[in-house]
């Protein structure tokens, strides 16, 4: 319309000049918003860069020859030697297997115990349910990390110190998982239950054939949160284990870093750090959306 105002009647032309004026104001608003947006982007990406630099610095140090690593200059030289040296310097393969085992078994047991308890809390009326539910709540407020000292004594009484089972045992029941899953079970329509029962299905059958498959996203979320927690856990496995064959990746890394500290072998420490962090990091890069989504939907860790 504003392209060719001459064709329009006088009144409209006046209006259109008014519109032009408005358009000008709007345009200036748009430029202002545009500048704001550019500034906003600049600040945001500056932040992102600051967040990424520490990791890049470690990656760089892990891949350059030792003598250049502590040099103040910049260099493009590149080597796999540090990684190979570190991998052979400590039984990281064993640590990796242990970590995989611990994460796997803990998750497997958690999935079973939490499914059972969540179903009971969601769909079974039984005596003392509310009180029990409160008891479960406390574990979320006082997680096992805080009870390391007393849990250590419990393990001692059970004679399970320096075993992989000892590392796993305190985490076999997850109140957090129970809460998460109970919420999901409660949202399933009750009619499903009734229909299946009319067909003659037992409650355990209903639980395993209807409730569990329909709550898959929750299980995936919980699995991601649980594995990343146990993969990264340190103080508890450190306390429980003494021997190399029971150590986890994190503990192995700490021991390795401590042993090399004196020589300030930073390229080795960086390489080891990379080895320990890599599996989860790669998983995270590949399944970024799911991982972030899981943390979003699940709330608390552990």
């Amino acid at each position, binding site marked *: 319309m504003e392209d060719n105002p001459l064709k329009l009647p006088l009144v409209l032309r006046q209006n259109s000049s008014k519109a032009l004026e408005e358009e000008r104001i709007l345009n200036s608003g748009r430029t202002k918003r545009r500048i*704001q947006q550019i500034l*906003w*982007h600049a*600040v*945001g*990406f500056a*932040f*992102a860069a600051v*967040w990424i*630099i*520490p990791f890049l*610095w*470690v990656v760089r140090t892990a891949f350059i020859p030792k003598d250049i690593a*502590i040099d*103040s200059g910049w260099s493009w030289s590149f080597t796999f030697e540090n990684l190979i040296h570190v991998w052979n310097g400590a039984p990281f393969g064993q640590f990796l297997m242990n970590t995989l085992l611990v994460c796997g078994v803990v998750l497997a047991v958690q999935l079973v115990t*939490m499914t*059972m*308890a969540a179903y*009971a809390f969601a769909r*079974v*009326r*039984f*005596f003392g349910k509310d009180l*029990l539910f409160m*008891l479960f709540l*406390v574990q979320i*407020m*006082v*997680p096992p990390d*805080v009870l*390391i*000292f*007393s*849990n250590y*004594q*419990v393990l001692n009484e059970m004679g399970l110190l320096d075993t992989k089972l000892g590392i796993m*045992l305190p985490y*076999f*029941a997850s*109140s957090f998982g*129970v809460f998460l899953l109970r919420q999901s079970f409660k949202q399933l329509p009750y009619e499903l239950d009734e229909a299946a029962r009319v067909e003659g299905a037992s409650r355990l059958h209903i639980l395993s054939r209807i409730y569990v498959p329909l709550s898959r996203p929750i299980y995936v979320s919980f699995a991601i949160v649980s594995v*990343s927690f146990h993969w*990264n*856990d*340190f*103080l508890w496995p450190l*306390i429980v284990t003494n021997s190399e064959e029971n150590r986890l*990746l*994190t503990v192995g890394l700490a021991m390795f870093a401590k042993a090399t500290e004196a020589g*300030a072998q*930073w390229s080795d420490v960086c390489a080891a*750090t990379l080895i*320990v*962090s890599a599996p989860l*990091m790669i*998983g*995270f890069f590949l399944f*970024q959306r799911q991982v972030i989504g899981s*943390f*979003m939907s699940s709330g608390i860790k552990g």
Partner: protein
Amino acid sequence: MEGLNGMNAGWSERLRRNGFGWGLVLPSLLFLCLFTYYPMFKSFWLSFYEKNLATPEPLFVGFDNYINLLHDNVFMKVFSNNIWFAIGTVPTSLALAFLMALFADKAIKGRGLARLSFFYPNMIPMIAVANIWLFLYTPHFGLFARLASWITDQPVNLLGTPDTVMGALVIMMIWKEAGYFMIFYLAGMQQIPKDLYEAAAVSGVGTFTAIRRITIPLTMPTTLFVAVVAITNSFKLVDHLWIMTKGGPNNASNLLLYYIYESTFNFYDQGMAASMTVIMIVLLLLISSLQFFGWDRKIHYE
């Protein structure tokens, strides 16, 4: 006769239902008792006894352990350290997390990259984070020392100086945690109806006003939740001390849980460790109960 049978059937049905419910909860409950309640009561019991290298058999001392803690300069120092650590990390990481979420929510280009770079520190074990930052903070070779060498000729030893060590650890913790809290803000922001912003834009409200009047109030429940998690974490996350400072220099960076660990495994003072565990449990229960009683509702309806 008919009615009696019906009553019997009712009773047996009820009995079966209760048995089923308890049976489902039992495995979780067993682990909960073994690794949450039993350790908690054990700590509570032991906190009234003297038990250390000099007195291997527990000796009842009443409240002496607690009174001793009040007079223990190291404990008071560690306690105040922990409070400063919380004050240093919680508000800043919450504010940053909010900004990050705004950015990762709105910015169209590079949104994924921004989320990735803010969140990845969470996928790295705390122990690896400690290694990375120990390297960054190292005198002479570290990134910070190199940056500082442009400004001052003095060698900079951030972790070795009592005045700077806490600040250095606070910065690291913010780097590690802000991206994690961002996730919750992202989830919170996505629940705000889009037409609120459209209505605001139509009535000529600027971006910043919209954030102040719409986003901040409507993410208040998230803020409360994240604040509780963040405060809890500031008492819980101690792995980094093991690698970076061992609580030093001169206990300037020591935190409660690490001091409990030291008392147990380095000083073998179990009575003291138990009473500190009890203090920690009470503290955590108080913090988490903020979430459950009142606060939530008040903030929501403000």
